[in-house]
Structure formats: C-alpha cells, structure tokens
C-alpha cells in the first residue's frame, strides 16, 4: 500500500502553511530522517523529514504553493515493490481528515461542559465514597462523620507544641515509612521546640536535620514519597516554604492526576504560618488561601491542642499531600487533649465551637480563639453568636457553614491573611451561591490590613485582626447599635 505524506503541523496552533521547497523529486529514494521539503508558517521555516522509507511516487503539491492545509496529502511514497500504478488505487484511503477530528473533539468538549455546569445535587448521608470527586465539582456534602464527645471523657492538659509532637511520635512508632526532615528539627529539637525529643527516640535515620535548602529538600521529600516513604517536612516557618512552593504544587499536588491515578504522594508539609510577634513583613504572612487554591492538596489549620493532635494524625495518615498550617503564638498555649491514640479528626470537617442563633462567626487557626472571646463579649450584649472552627481549609466544610448561616442568617468570616482573594472571599462566594436568600444583612470579612505587615508595635496591632473588630463586625451584621 502506498503511503501518503501529509502537510505537517509544526506547532499546536498551525492550521496551514506554505510549501516552500521540495528537496526530493519524483523517483528519488528517501530514508526515514531525510529532509524532503521545507515549509513556512508566519513564524518560521521548518524542514519536513521523511518518517518512512521508499521512493517518492508523486508530488501532489508543487513547491511554492501557499496556504496548504495541515494534513492535506502533499506527496505519495512508494514502498518496496510498489510502482506508480499503485498510486490511484488507494489515494482516497487517507489518514483521518482534520474535519473528522474536529467534530470528534467538539462532541467530547460539549458533553464534558454539560457535566461541569451541573454540579451534583446535595448528598444526603455522611458516608460518601467518592467525596473528593464530588468536591472537585463544587458539591456541598455533609462532612465525614465524627463524634468527638466520647473522646473528651479522658483528656490531659497539653500545649499545642506537645500535642503536635505527640501526634508525630505516635504515628512514627507504628510505621517505619514515616520520617521527618527540616531545618534544626533534630539536634536543636526544633526552632520552636515542636520536635523536642524526637531525635532521641527515633534516631538520625528518621529525624533529619537538613541544610537551609527548602527547594531542594522539599523536592527530595516528594521524590521519597513517590518511592514509598511518608515524609513529614517541617518548614521553620511557612514564609520559607515559598522557596519550595514549586515542589509542593507542581510535584506533590499534581502527580496523582498527571499519573492518571497511578502514583500518589503521601506527604505532610508543616510549620508555623501567619504572623508571630514583631517579626516584620517577610516573616509574617498567612498562606492559607495560597494553598487552598490548589487542587490535589489538602490544607489543614488547627487552632487548639486537641485540633493539633487529631488533625496532624489525620494528615500523616492521609495518602495525599497535606499542607498543615500551625501558628507560633499558639504553640505555648494549653488545652485539654483526648488521651485516646485513635483521636483522629477527619479532614474536611469543621467544628462548631459554640452554638448560637444570632450570627455565625467562621474562623480558622488563631482567629478561632479571638472569635470565641468576641462571642463571650457579644453574649454580654445580648447577641448569641455561633462560632465555627474551620479546622480544614481545603476541602472546606461548606455544609456546616451553610447550615449555620441558614439558621442565623448573618455571617462574619475571620482570618489572619490578606483580604483579597482570601478565605473570607471564598466563604462570601459560597454564601452568595448557596445561601443568598437566607441573609438578613450583607456579610462581613475580617482579615489582615491589605499591607505588608508593619514592624512598629502600634501599626502591627492595627494590621492584625483583633477581637474588637470581630465584635464590631458581628454587631454590624446584627444591626445592633
């Protein structure tokens, strides 16, 4: 059978080109790799190489012809034992025409956009098998089931710091594939002492001091996760993870999808996030909305010690990449923590820290404490606030937020990050899309001032959201004086 040589596309966007020159004539023998012609587009001149070998039987498009459509036959190649008389016999059995292809893709695209435009209906029941597939389509689903009460029967008082350490130690005891690496985590016991005693217990094979090379060690950790290990990467603070964000997003978050589900990346990236105290703009930023933007990541941010313990254990057990955002100012604070080693808080479930009927206050991380404080003060003024501790930022527990707003009809969001495209903006969109008719007042967002964090004490206090602002915002949405 003779072979048609087609006008090639030389870039993803090329639809036609000029056949500038033939370098072979009819009757010439060609081997694969031989340059047979030159074609021009508006951008460049390129050589056309033969793929098959044979003899040029017929040139169909003369040199100098302009606007030759991609995929049009330009010559016919005779294979061994064929002659010119074989040409007409199969000139019509062409390779797929561009038209046929276009129709095919069009159908595929329109079907898929149909699916995309109709997010699945709200799911009843908390046991959902394909939760992440539904989340990806914007579904509002009841969060994973979790009954916290029984765990609180037996607790001990711990700082957030110790709760984090215990979570890691307990998980590491049971699974040799888990190891941790980061700057100053081993011999120094952690820049913020979160990894105190870890080196003593687990040794230098599993608790590893790295050089100050975030980009490199994040990539190394991702590679080791692909090759079967479960690394916990500590960033001294998340400000320095910007050096490594390429590997967090491009290498960790996208791998499972790009591998068609074949190869995952079980890894935890953890460390303090947000502002500490008077450390200035480069060391004080909340990255919650940065990571929350990325499909393929889970983003968790604990508030108290129980959160820290239960969520970090969940993060370590999760087979996906998890970004775990802590807060330095919380490390030293003490709370009651369940003693049961199976206290593992499901990722994707928010917690109602205080029930109320007048206004919903949604907060994450350190802001939860301020929101609770605000709620106490509001109660004194006759306003009954419901406080939601998000715990997980992605996937956001949209169900819990919506149910609360449907009850209170008013909402204030609180975060430490910048307001623009922040977590509050996402919550606002959620309410706008799903609870518009329930609102009795425009929602309010509490966030950091939209400026690099100042060093000066007075200005810093103004820039970071305080309890008073939450109280004020809650009163505003309640139209209370």
């Amino acid at each position, binding site marked *: 059978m003779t072979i048609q040589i087609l006008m090639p596309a030389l870039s993803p966007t090329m639809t036609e080109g000029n056949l500038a020159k033939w370098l072979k004539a009819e009757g010439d023998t060609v081997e694969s790799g031989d340059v047979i012609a030159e074609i021009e587009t508006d951008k460049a001149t390129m050589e056309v190489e033969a793929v098959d070998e044979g003899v040029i039987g017929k040139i169909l498009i003369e040199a100098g012809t302009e606007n030759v459509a991609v*995929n049009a036959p330009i010559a016919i190649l005779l294979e061994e034992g064929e002659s010119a008389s074989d040409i007409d016999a199969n000139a019509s059995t062409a390779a797929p025409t*561009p038209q046929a292809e276009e129709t095919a893709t069009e159908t595929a695209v329109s079907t898929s956009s149909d699916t995309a435009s109709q997010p699945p209906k709200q799911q009843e029941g908390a046991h959902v098998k394909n939760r992440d597939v539904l989340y990806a389509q914007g579904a509002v689903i009841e969060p994973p089931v979790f009954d916290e009460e029984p765990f609180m029967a037996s607790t001990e008082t711990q700082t957030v710091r110790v709760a984090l350490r215990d979570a890691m130690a307990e998980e590491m005891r049971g699974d040799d594939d888990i190891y941790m690496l980061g700057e100053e985590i081993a011999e120094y016991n952690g820049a913020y002492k979160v990894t105190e005693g870890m080196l003593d217990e687990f040794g230098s094979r599993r608790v590893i001091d790295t050089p100050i090379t975030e980009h490199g060690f994040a*990539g190394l950790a991702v*590679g080791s996760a692909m090759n079967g*290990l479960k690394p916990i990467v500590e960033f001294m603070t998340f400000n320095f993870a910007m050096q490594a964000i390429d590997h967090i997003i491009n*290498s960790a978050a996208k791998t499972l999808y790009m591998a068609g589900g074949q190869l995952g990346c079980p890894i935890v990236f953890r460390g303090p996030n947000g502002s500490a105290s008077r450390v200035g703009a480069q060391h004080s930023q909340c990255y919650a909305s940065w990571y929350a933007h990325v499909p393929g990541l889970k983003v968790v941010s604990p508030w108290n010690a129980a959160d820290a313990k239960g969520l970090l254990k969940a993060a370590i057990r999760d087979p996906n990449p998890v970004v775990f955002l802590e807060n330095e100012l919380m490390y030293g604070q003490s709370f009651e923590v369940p003693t049961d080693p199976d206290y593992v808080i499901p990722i994707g479930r928010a917690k109602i820290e205080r029930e109320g009927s007048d206004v919903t206050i949604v907060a994450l991380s350190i802001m939860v404490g301020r929101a609770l404080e605000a709620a106490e003060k509001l109660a004194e003024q006759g306003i009954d606030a419901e406080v939601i501790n998000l715990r997980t930022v992605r996937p956001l527990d949209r169900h819990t937020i919506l149910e609360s707003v449907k009850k209170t009809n008013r909402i204030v969001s609180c975060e430490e990050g910048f307001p623009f495209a922040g977590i509050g903006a996402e919550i606002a969109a959620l309410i706008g899309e799903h609870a518009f008719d329930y609102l009795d007042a425009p929602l309010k967002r509490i966030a950091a001032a939209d400026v690099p964090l100042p060093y000066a004490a007075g200005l810093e206090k103004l820039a970071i959201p305080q309890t008073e602002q939450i109280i004020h915002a809650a009163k505003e949405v309640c139209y209370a004086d």
Partner: protein
Amino acid sequence: MASTKKKTKKSNATKTISNSNPEPTLDDMKKLYEEMLLIRRFEEKAGQLYGMGLIGGFCHLYIGQEAVVTGIQSVQEEGDTVVTTYRDHAHMLAQGMTPEGVMAELTGREGGYSRGKGGSMHMFSQEKGFFGGHGIVGASTSIGTGLGFAHQYRNDGGVAVAYMGDGSANQGQVAECYNMAALWKLPVLYVIENNQYGMGTSTARHAAGQLYARGQGYGIPGEQIDGMDVFSVQNAARQALDYVRTGNGPYILEVMTYRFRGHSMSDPANYRTKEEVDGKKNEDPIIQLRNVMMDQHNVKEEDLKSIDKEIKARVKKAAEFAENSPELAPEELYTDVLIEVE
C-alpha cells in the same frame, strides 16, 4: 570498540573505580542497536503524529541522544529507579514501558500510562521504576535525590538515576541536592544530558565552568563522556553505578550529546548552523554502532534490515493503538485529584 576519539574528563579523580568493563558481545550490540532504533523510530513516528494533529502541546524528541539512556539503562539493575525531564519518551521505552502505552499518552488516550491526563511530559510507571516525566526544569534532580533517599532508607540496594539537561544543571535546587546527596551519601547517579543547548541558548552562553565538575566542592566525582558512542556511555555508567551502589554516595556523569531536532516540535532551531548539525549527524550513535557491527562482526545489511523492519512494525502497532484508543469519558475529568479516604 566504536570510538574513543573523545577523551573523558574527570573531577575528583582520586576516587577511582576498580572494576573493569567487559568486551561487548555481538548479542549485546544487537540489543543496544534494537533499543536505540526503537527510540529513533518511535520519536520519528511521534513527530509524524504531531504533524497530523494527533499529538498536541509540547513534544520534545530525543533523536540524536539515543545512546545516553540506552547505554545507562543497559547496566542498571532491577529495582533501580529513574526520573527525568519532559524529554522523556526514550527513558520510558528504555525502562521497559510499552511503546503502546507511551504513544497513547502522547495522543491523550485512555490507553496511555496516565490515561491521557499527563501527556508527553508527565508519565509515570511505578511498576517499571519510572517516576516521570517532569515539566519544571530542575525538578527531576530533587525528586531523583529523594528516590535515592528512599533506597537508602529502606536499604534495598537500589540506585536512583536522575537525569537533567545542561540547562537544568544551572538551577539552584541542583546545587542544593548535590550538597545533601554528598552529605548523606545517597545512592544517586546524576546524569547531565549535555546536548549543548537549553532551548536556544548554548552552553557557552549559559554555563560557567564545567558541568561535570560542579560536584567538586561537595566531593562528588564527575566525569564527562562521549554520549554519541553507546559503549563509552555504557562503560562509564557501569563504573559509576558500581561506585554509587557500593555506598560511596552520588556520582555525576556529564554525557556529551546532541539533539538533531529542535527543542520541541515547534522550534525551527535557527540558532544552529546547518554545518554544525550535519557535523553532529556524522556521529549518529545508531550509525556508529551499525558500523561497528558490520565492520567488526560481519553483520550483513540484510540482518540489520530485518531488525529495522521488526522495529518499524512495533512502532506502527503502537501508533495504531494510540490512534484508536478511546478518549477518557467526561466524568473522568474529576477523578484522580486525590486518593479517597473513607
């Protein structure tokens, strides 16, 4: 031996490697020849399918560089792992991934290694020890260092082969990983495929000093070898892998090679003269090996023709599979984002 015209250059030469290289048999040669030819024909076919619009986006061909991955893979051991950049088709074929699965990924179909969700630059096969296919220049070096870390952690005797281009070698993370790999004696063979250009920028314009010597400050031995001669690659890789596998830490092989085509399908490569390209084509690794087999082992033209025919048929079959494999169903858009936990 095919050619020893290029002297290899070494840094940290104090760390010499003792074992010697065996003379290749004709069977060995035929295997190398088939492997390289499969890559060549596969890439030509990919170029053709790209021309027909069946492959989209970026498509980086390996034509001219075949001896590099072929030589190295031929002396790897079962259980070793490999990671590379976006110029990855050859590495997958060499690792034993099927031409069908790779080609179908190029056409974005269900039968592809990533079921069409990865494309030319992003493919993986855990089973074959191939960890991508990475589109970000420099990433493969860090990920490869991590593969090596896992081999050491599990003490499984495996070595990670981490490929990068000459352009990638300038990334900061490469230096970061050299440091960690040397510090922790990780079993990683760093392979710099120096095809003398990072897109349109020649090494003369982008790299100071010698790439093979960049491990010097960390005490990592490095060596520059002729990558157009599959035996020179094979011999150097055998010794380097032996060095790495026996607990000495990483090793850098800078393999001097050349891509005969543009950086990707849409690059006319006007930054190189025709003379330069033609000169390199005279060193075509496949033709060199073919000449050795014919001149020194009396292999006949017909024998080679029949190998060629058989490989062409394999590639043709792969292309047919890739054209006919279905596209993923629309609902698959939302799957594989995360592993579901229940």
